[in-house]
């Protein structure tokens, strides 16, 4: 049941994300910003991250990727409207779901970079992810590993040998009465010929 809810949430979120982005372009009222340069953030500073999962080592066919979301000020919460890739590479994948969770991290309840399977195994993600549209991010950006944490979960499934995935994420949200797009430099990838720069090393 939980798995089904996540899948449904993902399908709905994708539609909302596309609609929001289309409206933003038409209305020209959306402010696009980088990480650490608007009310909603991920790293809250410059830098980027990539995760390329290796199907030959894991044996899995789908994966869940985790991306931190936080707000610059707890007085200015961010209402998420949708999530979409900034760009994609390859055609050996498809998105199978989106979700958001908020929790208090501990040794056996930690954030993830990626885990095998989507929906994620409960041993790795014991929470029930919430639907993306309308989710309110209130957790302030902090370095404290025990501070309350909000995590975006993205599910990708391998559908071909080429691999590939998302090159960055765009999170559309509203805060303080304005609409923004947070561009996160975080790649969610599946190893394969579509991304030759990954999974081989120097």
């Amino acid at each position, binding site marked *: 049941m939980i798995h089904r809810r996540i899948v449904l949430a993902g399908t709905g979120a994708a539609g909302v994300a596309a609609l929001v982005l289309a409206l933003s372009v038409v209305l020209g009222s959306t402010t696009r910003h980088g990480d650490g340069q608007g009310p909603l953030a991920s790293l809250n500073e410059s830098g980027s991250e990539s995760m390329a999962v290796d199907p030959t*080592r894991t044996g899995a066919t789908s994966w869940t990727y985790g991306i931190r979301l936080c707000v610059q000020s707890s007085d200015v919460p961010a209402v998420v409207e949708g999530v979409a890739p900034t760009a994609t590479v390859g055609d050996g994948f498809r998105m199978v779901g989106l979700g958001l969770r908020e929790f208090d991290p501990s040794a056996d309840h930690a*954030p993830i*970079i990626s885990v*095998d399977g989507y929906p994620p195994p409960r041993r790795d993600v014991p929470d029930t992810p919430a639907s993306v549209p309308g989710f309110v991010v209130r957790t302030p950006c902090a370095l404290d590993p025990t501070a309350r944490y909000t995590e975006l979960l993205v599910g990708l499934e391998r559908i071909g040998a080429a691999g590939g995935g998302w090159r960055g994420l765009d999170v559309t949200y509203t805060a303080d009465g304005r609409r923004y797009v947070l561009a996160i430099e975080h790649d969610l990838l599946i190893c394969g010929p579509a991304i030759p720069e990954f999974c081989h090393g120097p």
Partner: protein
Amino acid sequence: MRSRRARAGRFGVTLIAIAAIAGGAPLSAGATSAGGAVPLGVDARVLAAPTHGVHIGKGQLSDAAGRAVNGRVAILAWPGETFLRSLRDGVVFATPTVGWARTAADGRWSADANPTLIPREYVEPDGKVNFVAIGWTSMAQGRWDFSAWLGANASRNDATDLSFSANGKLDTGAALLRTSVRSTQRDPSPELGIPICGYGRVGTYQVWSIVNESWPYGSDKGWLHHESSHSVTVGSAMSTDGGLHFSVSGSSTTTAGVSFTYAKSIAYRDFRVGMQYGKFRQYCGGQPTNTYSFRVDFPNGGYDDVGRSGVPNWTYCLTVSAGEWVRNRTDGSAWSFSAGTKVAGVIGIDLSSSTNYSTTLDLHYELVAKGLVCGSNAVPSIAAKVKTSR
């Protein structure tokens, strides 16, 4: 004839630099200007008229006790990374006087540099130039190294306070005229035959700075790609007693335009990059003086890794699947260049770094199975150091 032409070709870059200031009568030791005696190395001809050009900085001149003094400040140009990379041992390069200013009664000064007096080879691609400020009174002199921009970034030149003290005895070069100093074999010879002051490199020193670490678990592998194109400003030092004692004399800037990828490995490693420092000796009229400058030369492009032991116990851990995880940092906040300024073993003092070693570091880990990526002081994406674990 053939060898002379070949020599001219080899020293073409230096000749161009020197020609920029050697068009008139040669500067002699013990020069004076309308304002009185002039320190050795300062071209008195430039002091004949006010300098108009690019504002390069301001500061305050003081005496050895820190009291403001009234005097003059001359600005000399020093070559940058591009020129120094091509500088051969045995060649003296010019340090042309490119501007000057009188101090106010409270010692404050503000100086321009005349860009037409600065050899083109001394200007880095980003418009930055290394300068030497020489301040003096009727009895004392001092020196401060700094960098400033020409062109569009010149508005940033006042960001740094260039205050320094005239804490040494005024040296007009009179002793140089009386004493014939014998050159050592490593000293640059006066082969250009131009009796002006300049500097020649008499020694180089490699300093290594650790830029990151890798701690892969078991059969996991770690590696690093390092790429930098930003400026590094590093402290410099000078000696006026023949190199016996050095004191801090400001800073100089070099770019860190190096790029390399360390091979992936299961070993625990430090990743290190190399910076070359140069020890430069002043020559006037072909004769060596007792003035030395010790300063950053250029990044030598060298890199190395050194094995480590003892796995750290970092607990900012996130779960990760088998595959490749990459973390890119560009702000340099986690790694400063301070380790690259430990030169006390060479000149008796350590130098400072006034800015972080700004660079791009891509830290890679290849995990052979599901595991953990752990940060040293924060979550792995922003931590200073990262390891893999299970």
